[in-house]
């Protein structure tokens, strides 16, 4: 597979943005500027970046609680995300959502869902609305392999297939539902095969290879958009860090983590681009500088943000404007 230089650099830059953004998050979390849960996407960047690149602006995205990567790759401004994590009114949800609940109307980014599997029926509904209103749009629904154990996954796979809904199911299989290995929770671990049981076309993808993800997503999106019904991608990936910020990692070995780190999606693409002569040291340094500048501004902007007045606590429980 040959890579267009521009596309390659774009994918690399997007993955770097996520990686560096989350590294900042770790710092800010340690300094207690970010609190609550902080689920890091580091190691899985190729999945969000590869899939988002295949979507059109009018498509919809339903993400999980490990959603920084999805939001950034979808184009939600880093500063708004950072402000949300700092609990500021300038945040994506005015400080009401936090890390797990990023939302953005302008990019049709429907969260930020922290009930495992809970976002999957929403995606079917969004797709149903598109289908009923004759819009050729795709709803990309991200969920982890842990959600496959939830009833909502199975109900929705059936519903989407039954109603031929334009949903792209993106199963991020990072092998662990928190600390429970896939083989400890599923009798059948071939997730793509599970999906085909519902009549949904499904194929596994190397989720550490952003080019493979991008390619698979492009093909899947075309099929969904063209009325082919839902498609299921099993994106095999790995999170390098703990489930949320810190955990004792008793559920997996250091050797295993090390093995996967050798397939770091950013390193893989960097090598590939270097080998193709598409990326020099200067290019990489410049890219890092640009990303650092963006994040410096995002953190500074978020820190300079304001807090929602407590008097407004009960706003947004019910709508303020009749639609």
């Amino acid at each position, binding site marked *: 597979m040959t890579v267009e230089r521009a596309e390659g650099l774009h994918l690399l830059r997007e993955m770097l943005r996520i990686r560096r953004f989350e590294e900042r998050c770790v710092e800010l979390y340690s300094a207690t500027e970010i609190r609550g849960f902080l689920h890091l996407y580091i190691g899985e960047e190729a999945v969000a970046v590869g899939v988002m690149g295949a979507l059109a602006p009018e498509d919809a995205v339903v993400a999980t609680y490990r959603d920084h990567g999805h939001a950034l790759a979808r184009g939600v401004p880093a500063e708004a995300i950072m402000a949300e994590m700092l609990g500021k009114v300038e945040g994506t949800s005015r400080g009401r959502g936090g890390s797990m609940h990023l939302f953005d109307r302008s990019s049709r980014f429907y969260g930020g869902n922290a009930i495992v599997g809970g976002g999957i029926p929403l995606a079917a509904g969004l797709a149903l609305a598109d289908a*009923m209103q004759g819009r050729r749009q795709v709803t990309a629904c991200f969920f982890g392999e842990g959600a496959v154990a939830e009833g909502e996954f199975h109900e929705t796979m059936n519903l989407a297939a039954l109603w031929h809904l334009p949903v792209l199911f993106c199963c991020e299989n990072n092998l662990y539902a928190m600390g429970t290995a896939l083989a400890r929770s599923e009798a059948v671990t071939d997730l793509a095969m599970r999906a085909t049981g519902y009549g949904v076309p499904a194929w596994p993808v190397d989720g550490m290879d952003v080019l493979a993800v991008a390619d698979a997503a492009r093909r899947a999106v075309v099929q969904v958009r063209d009325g082919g019904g839902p498609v299921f991608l099993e994106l095999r990936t790995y999170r390098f860090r703990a489930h949320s910020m810190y955990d004792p990692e008793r559920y997996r070995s250091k050797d295993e983590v090390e093995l996967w780190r050798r397939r770091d999606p950013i390193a893989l693409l960097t090598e590939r681009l270097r080998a193709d002569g598409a990326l020099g040291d200067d290019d990489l340094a410049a890219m890092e500088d640009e990303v650092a500048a963006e994040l410096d501004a995002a953190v500074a902007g978020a820190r300079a943000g304001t807090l929602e007045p407590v008097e407004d606590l009960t706003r947004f429980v019910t709508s303020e404007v009749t639609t």
Partner: protein
Amino acid sequence: MTTTYREAVRAALRDALTRDDRVFLMGEDVGRYGGCFAVSLGLLEEFGPDRVRDAPLSESAFVGAGIGAALGGMRPIVEVMTVNFSLLALDQIVNNAATLLHMSGGQFNVPLVVRMTTGAGRQLAAQHSHSFEGWYAHVPGIRVVAPATLEDARGMLWTALCDPDPVLVFEHGSLYNIEGELADDAGAVDIDRAAVRRPGRDLTVVAYGGTLGKALAAADQLTADGIDAEVVDLRTLRPLDTATIVGSVTRTHRAVVVDEGWRTGSLAAEVSARITEEAFYDLDAPVGRVCSAEVPMPYARHLEEAALPQVADIVAAAKELGG
């Protein structure tokens, strides 16, 4: 014209489907079967399978899809066969429908209507007969209404559809066959206020949904004892119209709250608490409650009758307060 509650709900559905292309009805057996309680009979033929949509027995998926479709610009009416079954969709209703607006900082409202049958009285035993509307009334972010009259059966649905936020409509199963006069031009009614269904001086009986008729019958019987009871129909269970309740009790100085839910942690408890909070110095007797016996609903007729609030219980409770 003379009509039934069932026909009034059907007329409301037909009206909504006719007036707004974004409206569709979705649920188990709403189409070909004509609705479990024959409410939607004939609508499939009139509006087609796209808009009168039979759903698989996947409460979580189709309620969640309703939420998604509402997010996607539709105005779904989701029918859940009974409130007992809605527990399978509790995650979608409570974790998604009720929270999305707040969690997204006001970006995503959910204009969804969920209708469901509630209550006992038809010997359907312990998995089809309960009254969980009080649970739902606990949750901020959703509106809960209980049409008890033909006017409300006809008029609440459209107002609920116009609400930008989720509305749960509870139709008591014993009401579908009640017959009465309904104005030919009956239309939308408010879903904000409780209503005084019978004015009286000596005692306030607070009821809603399936217990309204019993409360009115009890009030008639109390006349023989020289007790002039006022009957308040809550209509909207969340947000409660405290002003109307308290206004009535301030006049009558006594209150009996009737609720088919179990007494412990019930809606009746909430109403009683509000009366005590806001009308304490106008109370001439403790607030009385007539609720269901604390047993799963039994099948045998005499046991079911004994478990439910009956007219005689309301009369006895009223007399005990010395109306």
